[in-house]
């Protein structure tokens, strides 16, 4: 049973998230609605994973993001999945800056697809990453003039996108209708073209790719 903390100020959405995660076998240890409560909960309860809205009372700015970042400086690698109505590369970079994984950053719409959302929560709880496809699209768009990236084949690019979102080889294979060994071959090709050291660990591999895309 994974212990989860939810921070969301809209009652309907908070309630929906509680039910959704409980139905998928999570234990909701707290459901808070403001930034200070969130920080207190993160530090005192040390949940296995928390689902956090960026914009929270009292300031309705980036209260949730700041609380998550503050908690992660005190407890490195504390798994946090950040939800937002809009995604920004700036926030993604701040979340990934410590390079310790256990980070998710998704658009709120992704909650619509319960399976994928719960999968993302699990991945983050296990120390992996879950980046919104839109963040990855923005990252790739701003890397448009990056030559090693331009040298990738379309298939390799698909694999790179899925990998940057934080998916494992198995999940990528399922999504792109490929065999796992084909995915492994593509990943090796990508790592060679980008000049990255290959790694068998899924999480470390994703962080390397994100760090590469962010290093521009």
């Amino acid at each position, binding site marked *: 049973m994974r212990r989860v903390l939810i921070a969301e100020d809209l009652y309907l959405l908070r309630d929906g998230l509680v039910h959704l995660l409980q139905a998928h076998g999570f234990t909701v240890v707290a459901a808070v609605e403001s930034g200070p409560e969130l920080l207190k909960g993160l530090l005192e309860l040390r949940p296995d994973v928390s689902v956090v809205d*960026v*914009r929270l009372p009292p300031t309705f*700015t*980036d209260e949730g993001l700041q609380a998550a970042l503050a908690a992660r400086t005190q407890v490195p690698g504390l798994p946090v999945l950040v939800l937002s*109505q*809009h995604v*920004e*590369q*700036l926030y993604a*970079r701040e979340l990934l800056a410590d390079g310790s994984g256990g980070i998710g950053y998704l*658009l*709120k*719409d992704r909650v*619509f*697809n319960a399976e994928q959302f719960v999968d993302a929560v699990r991945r983050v709880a296990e120390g992996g990453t879950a980046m919104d496809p839109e963040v990855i699209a*923005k990252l790739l*768009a*701003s890397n*448009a*003039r990056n030559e090693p990236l331009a040298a990738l084949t379309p298939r390799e690019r698909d694999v790179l996108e899925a990998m940057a979102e934080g998916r494992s080889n198995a999940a990528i294979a399922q999504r792109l209708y490929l065999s796992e060994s084909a995915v492994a071959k593509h990943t090796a090709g990508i790592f060679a073209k980008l000049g990255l050291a290959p790694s068998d660990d899924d999480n470390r591999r994703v962080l390397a790719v994100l760090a590469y895309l962010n290093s*521009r």
Partner: protein
Amino acid sequence: MTGSVPVPHTGSMLRRYGQVVALLALLAVEVPVTALAAVMLLLSFALGVIVLFPPQVMMVRALAERNRRLVRRWTDAVIEPPYLPKPPPPVRQPDGMYRSDRTLYKTPRVPAWNDRWKWLLTDPATWRDHLWLLLEPVIKVALLPLLVLAPGRGLRVYAQWSDLLLGATAASRLAGQVLQLRRTRNLAADSQAAEMRRIERDLHDGTQARLVAIGMTLGAAEQLVERDPAAARALLSKAREASSETLTELRRVIRGIHPPVLAERGLADAVRALAMDSPLRVTVDVDLPHRPEAPVEAAAYFAVSELLSNAARHGGARTAAVDISSNGANLRITVTDDGMGGADPSRGSGLAGIERRLAAFEGVMALNSPPGGPTTVTMELPRVLPEDWADDRLKLPRWKAFTVATLWATSWCPTFPQGIVAGVFKILGVEEKSWFLALYLPEPWQWPAIAAMICTGVCMYVLSIRIPALHKREHWMLRAAGPGQRCVA
């Protein structure tokens, strides 16, 4: 004027005399023009040939303008033209007619002429020009001895005289400012209305239409759920996809109204976020001690956003630099890119849009884009930052501070010993005169002198309070006119 006396070089003296001769020779033009102007004025008002009036005024103005230019060239004294701005061209009504007062015209000619006529007739500067022209020979003759003996000094006195009748007055400056403000207000209101219409259209055509489609899909699914659960499920997943698209659409609209990152993080981080999303390699340098007001931030953000996307789309640039800094209370933004240059504000509507947006804050934009690049755009928004960051306007200038200190240090003397104490001595009939000046005067002058002393002292106290208070009020009023207290009507 500087206190030092310029050493008269022979060359410069000769030039001065040349200028004096030219000034006097101008009388040969001015006197006939005066006569002609008088005749034209007589014809246009006494005989009703009013068509002669505008050319007559323009003739006098041309002469006055030439005089301003000459004075500036000879003495460095800048005489600001005092004329009211030209009336705008007549506006076509929805029915295709042009209106002037209570009459409608088919062409804009008559209303334009009417506006021009009123403009020239009611501008006090017109009549000050006439007065100047009329007095011109008198003044020149009166100044003749000075012009001959000390041409430099004489020309300067002449410049002062010209400034008196040809220069801008406080009223003309204010009138100009009022017109300018009215124009920027209209521009701001127009662009705001256009913005609202755009948002309305986006919501109406995009979001609203999509929500209707989702509602219909859900209705269809509801009907099918008993009969054909598989089809109902397909419809439901379609509705979910559509709601996701609606959210994407809505996100785009919101970004156009006020980007969320700007609301959450302020200008510096919002511009950094822009730089990250841009395909160019953008360096961002923001040096602002505090966040500016929200409308200022939004204007600056959209300007930078537009410029960066211009650079990426048309300029063929690879790198760009954004620099945002404060210059006193002014906000200064510089965007440079290494593209091929040759940007022209009259061709692209983007630059015009930025100018319109900045106009609401009296902001200006300077574009430097030579063919081949690089392109540099500098924007400056005056007085949009809180003033107390940078300057010490609240501090009195030195001479005022000195006066106030002197007043405080000395005003006790006339008030108390020389005034009130002397009065008490006189009432009590004390023989002692001590150093009370009033008591040394003849008997009938003693009371008036005491009263005058008290008055002087009190006046000095009042002044020493009033000078700093007035100074602060100027500062306060300036601030009140700034964006901080801008009220939304």
